[in-house]
């Protein structure tokens, strides 16, 4: 168990590791557990205080009693379950296989820089997903087709805007408006147009922060859980704003 690593590089690494995990949308108790586990492997006691934008980390060496603390910023990253799974596995690997800090850091860099899924592939999957969702709510085949094309249009726009680093509230409102406007073409046809309109924006719902927020609250991390829920709620309001523009335009044919 005992490895002769000095405290500073270990603490620096764990700070970066924890901040990356929080940024990729991992719930708080897992971040704390995994960081403490890596710390334990290097004979260091790790304590974390996590908030929405920063982490305060305090690392104490078990033998020397030397303590190091730092405040790290949580980077804004896209949500990634892959990083969640691989970084959690890395913490166990460090603990079980007695890796040195260099090996751990090398593996960490490999995981973090691994290529992501092709955006075109994601686009098609999301389109199909939203079309099936429309079916689950009782939409017919025509509505499914309309939702498929509306979702692909909206999602494409969202990906392009996110690549250009446009403010994410704007991204959500505009994509919701465009997707629901496309879906409102269903009003021309004799179909389940209300369901088509309702489902067309659902690919935007921030499901991960919503569920993570509730998990955090249930596990006793009430503050960070509430912050997550509030930020998810703001995004939902943006979706509502985007969709309400469409509804204002077409509401006379809806009632």
């Amino acid at each position, binding site marked *: 168990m005992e490895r002769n690593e000095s405290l500073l590089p270990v603490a620096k690494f764990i700070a970066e590791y924890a901040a990356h995990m929080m940024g990729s*949308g*991992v*719930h708080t108790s*897992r971040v704390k*557990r995994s960081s403490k586990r890596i710390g334990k492997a290097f004979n260091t006691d790790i304590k974390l205080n996590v908030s929405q934008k920063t982490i305060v980390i305090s690392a104490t060496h078990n033998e020397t009693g030397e303590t190091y603390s730092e405040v790290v910023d949580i980077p804004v990253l*896209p*949500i*990634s*379950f*892959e*990083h*969640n*799974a*691989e970084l*959690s*596995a890395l*913490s*166990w*690997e460090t603990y*079980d*296989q007695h890796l040195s800090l260099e090996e751990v850091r090398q593996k960490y860099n490999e995981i973090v820089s691994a290529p*992501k*899924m092709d955006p075109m*592939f*994601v686009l098609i*999957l*999301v*389109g*199909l*997903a*939203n*079309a*099936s*969702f429309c*079916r*689950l*709510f009782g939409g017919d085949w025509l509505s499914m087709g309309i939702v498929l094309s509306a979702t692909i249009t909206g999602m494409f726009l969202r990906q392009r805007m996110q690549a250009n680093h446009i403010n994410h509230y704007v991204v959500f409102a505009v994509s919701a408006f465009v997707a629901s406007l496309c879906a409102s073409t269903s009003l021309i046809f004799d179909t389940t147009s209300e*369901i088509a309109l*309702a*489902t067309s*924006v*659902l*690919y935007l*719902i921030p*499901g*991960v922060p*919503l*569920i*993570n927020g*509730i*998990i955090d609250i*249930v*596990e006793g991390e009430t503050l960070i859980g509430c912050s997550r829920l509030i930020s998810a709620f703001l995004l939902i309001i943006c979706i*509502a704003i985007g*969709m*309400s523009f469409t*509804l*204002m335009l077409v*509401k006379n044919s809806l*009632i």
Partner: protein
Amino acid sequence: MILVDILLDGLFAAVAGVGFGAISDPPLRAFRYIALLAAVGHACRFCLMTYLGWDIATSSLFGSLTIGFGSLWLGKKVFCPMTVLYIPALLPMVPGKFAYNMIFSLIMFLQTMDDPQEKMKYMSMFFSNTIVTTTVISLLAAGATLPHFIFSKRAFSLTRRKPGEEE
């Protein structure tokens, strides 16, 4: 015919789960289990609501409990934390229709302020839809998290490869 309905429901839920999950970049090896869990969970809720006539909140709780325990069991096979499997699987159960009606009635309420009868109609519609949406989402997350508390030791070590065991 009942069986076909259940299977179709599961199939569409599986596609929805995988597609919405894909936005959040899950590991490729987890995809088939996400699909399986989404199908089983949603089909479970569908059966409870359609054939037993339960309400949406209770049925969602049971659906999410199924998904939660399923992810605890399957997580070990693919070395994925429970959340990686159950969050995408829960997404098809988010009550989108109610969320939409919530927004729709809010807008209509603001538009019909001058007509007391219409105003009351949309206000009650807004409240009932809001209550359903928030209750269902909270129960979904709480139900899937429950196995964490009961089997915490297993839940915390899903990504652990046995010491000495090589990949």
